[in-house]
């Protein structure tokens, strides 16, 4: 479904990604793990069209997307939940969701159906519908960020460290939701995490990114058993 092939990405003259390749098949949950500054966010930003690779290509559903603008990528069926949630703090929950549905704002019935589905997934958002996004708790903001991304009706969801800064029981909730989104909503997931334990728990396959290079990729269960991965990312 998504095929990233040998991309090099730079910030100015600093190279953040070297020859990164990865694949995500329809219906999968694939995780990308790596420590601070490994380049995980950069991978997602490049897929989203915020950054252009200097080399290599990105294909989605058989079509090149690496030269497309972010709006075209979203329209094409890829939504992103950015690192740090990045909800619109001064917009209400409802307005945040409306912005998520921006690319299909004219299809009223689709939008209200999507709204019902995200409310079913995260009932707390319905309770808080008229509250400003900035007044929600961290966990609720993360749910809002995910719900907002779903409003565009994506086939592939990119998630950047959804567990960041959340209490363990909330992390559990968020990961449950991701699993349900994948199974019930049939949305393919590419999940970036530093919390490798949780990520490998729900993922089918995983990639390990070290200093901008994919150093390892395998099924989630093999990665969990891998000596190096255990030492570095799972705390031995």
């Amino acid at each position, binding site marked *: 479904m998504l095929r990233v092939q040998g991309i090099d990405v730079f910030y100015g003259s600093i190279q953040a990604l070297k020859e990164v390749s990865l694949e995500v098949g329809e219906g999968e949950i694939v995780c990308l793990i790596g420590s601070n500054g490994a380049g995980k966010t950069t991978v997602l930003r490049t897929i989203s069209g915020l950054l252009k690779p200097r080399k290599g290509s990105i294909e989605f559903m058989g079509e090149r997307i690496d030269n497309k603008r972010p709006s075209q990528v979203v329209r094409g069926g890829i939504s992103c939940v950015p690192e740090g949630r990045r909800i619109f*703090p001064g917009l209400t929950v409802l307005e945040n969701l409306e*912005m998520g549905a*921006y690319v299909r704002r004219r299809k009223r019935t689709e939008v209200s159906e999507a709204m019902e589905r995200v409310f079913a997934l995260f009932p707390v958002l319905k309770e808080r519908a008229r509250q400003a996004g900035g007044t929600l708790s961290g966990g609720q903001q993360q749910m809002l960020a995910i719900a907002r991304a779903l409003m565009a009706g994506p086939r592939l969801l990119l998630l950047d460290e959804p567990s960041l800064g959340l209490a363990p029981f909330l992390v559990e909730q968020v990961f449950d939701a991701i699993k349900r989104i994948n199974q019930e909503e049939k949305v393919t997931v590419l999940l970036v995490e530093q919390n490798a334990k949780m990520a490998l728990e729900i993922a089918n396959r995983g990639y390990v990114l070290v200093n901008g290079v994919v150093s390892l990729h395998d099924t989630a269960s093999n990665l969990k058993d891998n000596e190096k991965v255990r030492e570095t990312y799972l705390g031995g």
Partner: protein
Amino acid sequence: MALSVLVQQLISGLAMGCIYSLVALGYTFIWNAVGIVNLAQGDFVTVAAFLYAATFSNHLKWGFVPALIAVMAVMALFGMGTERVVYHPLQGAHPRTVMLSTLALGILLSNMDIILWGPYPVTTRGPFGQDIIRFGDVSIMQHHVFIIVVTLVLLFLQHLFFQKTTIGKVMRAVAQDREAATLMGIETGQTIAVTFAYSSALAGIAGVLLAPAFMVSVDLGSVGLKGFASCVIGGFGHITGATFGGILLGIAEVFVSSFLSSRYRDAIVFVILVAFLLLRPQGVLGRKVGESL
């Protein structure tokens, strides 16, 4: 001071305050969207005042409403042009660089005013001329009441626009988090162009409302400073703050000039501005002034 005089002063202060609010809002929307203070905002007001007084009203003899709409349209286009020429090419640059380029635009405009409309002040009658309404011994300029009414209507429409319309919500979203908005598929570049258009149209309304009450000359550009001071008073980047800051300043100005001397009318703005910057830089309504200033 007699009560009647007090009321008269209050109304004229409110009217000027409304103008300052409009200018202040112009600064605010651009500031919120791109973190830039458009230093040409005051000169936009002058251009609009000349356009209305000299061109549409005196020369073409258009009525008030069509002239107002025409000036707003021209100014909106002009705002978009400004975004393209002055802001867009400098996006990666330090905000100070962009602000310098808006300063240059302001200088260019005030010279262009003289080339296009001549060095002499222009007067125009406006919808009410110097007509006065009397309530007992209170006499009020009709045009002042008109300024207040138009501003109130505009603020109401603006509220509806930002709360209810998709483009209004999109403009808020872009101002709050541009990259997140990009990830929603919003064309943030276009949204910012619309924001510039709207801010310039506000300057357009301010210019049209000012023109009948004053001699139109490049000196009108000083409302730019007053609008700026209004933003500082209310808290830079704060929409309600900008509105009330303007009104507060308008009223303070008339009272200072009637209690002390009209010679201090402009000086008081500087005093208030400096006092706020020193003592309460976040303004009456809170929120810190950005560091890029």
